[in-house]
Every structure is written in structure tokens, then in C-alpha cells.
């Protein structure tokens, strides 16, 4: 059953990713990106990461994507006839060969490693959110604060950048 769901989520997210890159109209690309984000959140559910599922839905699909669509519709872009680079055909064969090679390498790798301190049974006992919160506010408190300051800086930077600048010629006129 998990295999069926995994196949569905994986195939649809890859297809949506390809559509995001390949579609012509920017708004269609945004909607394909929305499909990708929703199906990646499905993959998170399969991996017992319910908290990240909720964050993915609220922050990515809810906030970031709305920001993208808002800017797209604010700018009211006209679609170019040539929406790819003129040299994009040169990129495709190396990309295909490189990705095949990477895939072959990945399926041969064992990926064994030292196990951590959060086995699935322990996580499922109190829920994923509990485990994430416990870890975040004990071992990762400094990083959490840094991310908070970073987001504040990003908000201030975005406002300063997007503000209408004062016309420079005013001073000379006075």
C-alpha cells in the first residue's frame, strides 16, 4: 500500500516538476509548482513527518506560492515567443546522461549509517510534532533564533527593495 502511494506521489511530483520547467505561460508554471509542492508533502506523510507536511502546506503552498502568483499577476507578463535560452538544446543531452549516471550510482549505494536517537516507534508514540519540538528547543535553539533574525531581515529587505524610491531630481529642482 505504501509502495502504491509512494509511486503515485513520486511520479506526479516529477511530472509536475518537468511541467514547471517546460510550460510556456508563467501562471501555468505556478500551478504546476503547486501540484509539485502538494505531492512532495504527500511524500513527507509517508516518511512520518506530519509536522513538515503541515509546514509544507501552510508555508510553501499557502504563502510562498501565493506570493509568486501575486507578483505574476501584478506584473501581467506577456509570454515571449522564445521562452527558453537559444542554446538550451546543448544542455539537454549532458543533463540526461548525467542524471542517468547519478541514478545508477544511487541505486547501487547501500546508504547505511549510524542510527540516531529517534526510532520510528518512539516518534509515533508522542507524535512527530512533539519529537520535532523537543529536538528544536533543546539542541537547535541557536539555529532557530538565527532563522528568526534572518526572516526579520528578509522582511525588512523586501519592503525596502520594493518601496517606491524617491525621485532624485527633486533636490536639484528646489
Amino acid at each position, binding site marked *: 500500500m505504501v509502495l502504491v502511494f509512494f509511486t503515485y506521489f513520486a511520479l506526479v511530483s516529477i511530472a509536475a516538476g518537468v511541467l514547471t520547467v517546460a510550460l510556456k505561460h*508563467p501562471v501555468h508554471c505556478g500551478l504546476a509548482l503547486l501540484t509539485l509542492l502538494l505531492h512532495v508533502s504527500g511524500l513527507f506523510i509517508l516518511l512520518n513527518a506530519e509536522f513538515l507536511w503541515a509546514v509544507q502546506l501552510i508555508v510553501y503552498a499557502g504563502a510562498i506560492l501565493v506570493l509568486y502568483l501575486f507578483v505574476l499577476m501584478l506584473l501581467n507578463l506577456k509570454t515571449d515567443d522564445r521562452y527558453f535560452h537559444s542554446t538550451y538544446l546543448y544542455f539537454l543531452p549532458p543533463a540526461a546522461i548525467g542524471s542517468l549516471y547519478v541514478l545508477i550510482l544511487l541505486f547501487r549505494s547501500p546508504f547505511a549509517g549510524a542510527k540516531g536517537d529517534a526510532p520510528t516507534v518512539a516518534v509515533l508514540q508522542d507524535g512527530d510534532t512533539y519529537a520535532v519540538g523537543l529536538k528544536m528547543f533543546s539542541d*537547535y535553539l541557536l539555529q532557530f533564533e538565527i532563522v528568526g533574525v534572518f*526572516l526579520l531581515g528578509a522582511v525588512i529587505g523586501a519592503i525596502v527593495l520594493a518601496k517606491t524610491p524617491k525621485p532624485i531630481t527633486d533636490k536639484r529642482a528646489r
Partner: protein
Amino acid sequence: MVPLSAYVAVSAVLFITGLLGVLIRRNFIIVLMSVEIMLNAANINLVAFSYYLESMAGQLVALFVIAIAAGEAAIGLAIIIVVFRGKISTNVDEMNLLKW
């Protein structure tokens, strides 16, 4: 039981798709969307390893990646608005003001 390599393979394919999008698309907004695809691929990787290696650290880093992605989207779109106000274009080839 889905093997870990399957998740890593999905993540690799998505990452390469996003990288290709950054390289070949000419619209700046689509380039930013491709960056989001790459960040999502990294997130799949982090969460899959967090599940299979039984550690919570991967999910936390994925959470921070989502926060960074939010900041990146806000700043990138603000830059797009500034450039669009001046030049009426979102084509990455025509933004060469800082090019040496």
C-alpha cells in the same frame, strides 16, 4: 517497504529538473520557481534520511530550509519588482547591469 534509494532517486531527478530550469529558462520568475524545486528535492532527501537513519536532525534542517526558501522568495520577488519597474522586462538575459 520503499527503499531509501527510491526517495534519493526521486530527489535527484527533481534536483536535476530544477537545475535545468535555472539554466535554460529566460523568465526570472520561472528561474526562482526552479530554485524552489531544487530546495524541495533537498527537503525530500533530508526527510528520507531522517526517517531511515532514525534521527530528528534531518527534519529540523528541512524546516530551516523551508524558512530560508520563504526569505529567498520574498527578496527575489522584490528584486523582480524593482527591475521590472525600471526596464519592463523579466528576461534574465537583459538584466546585465552588474555584469563586468
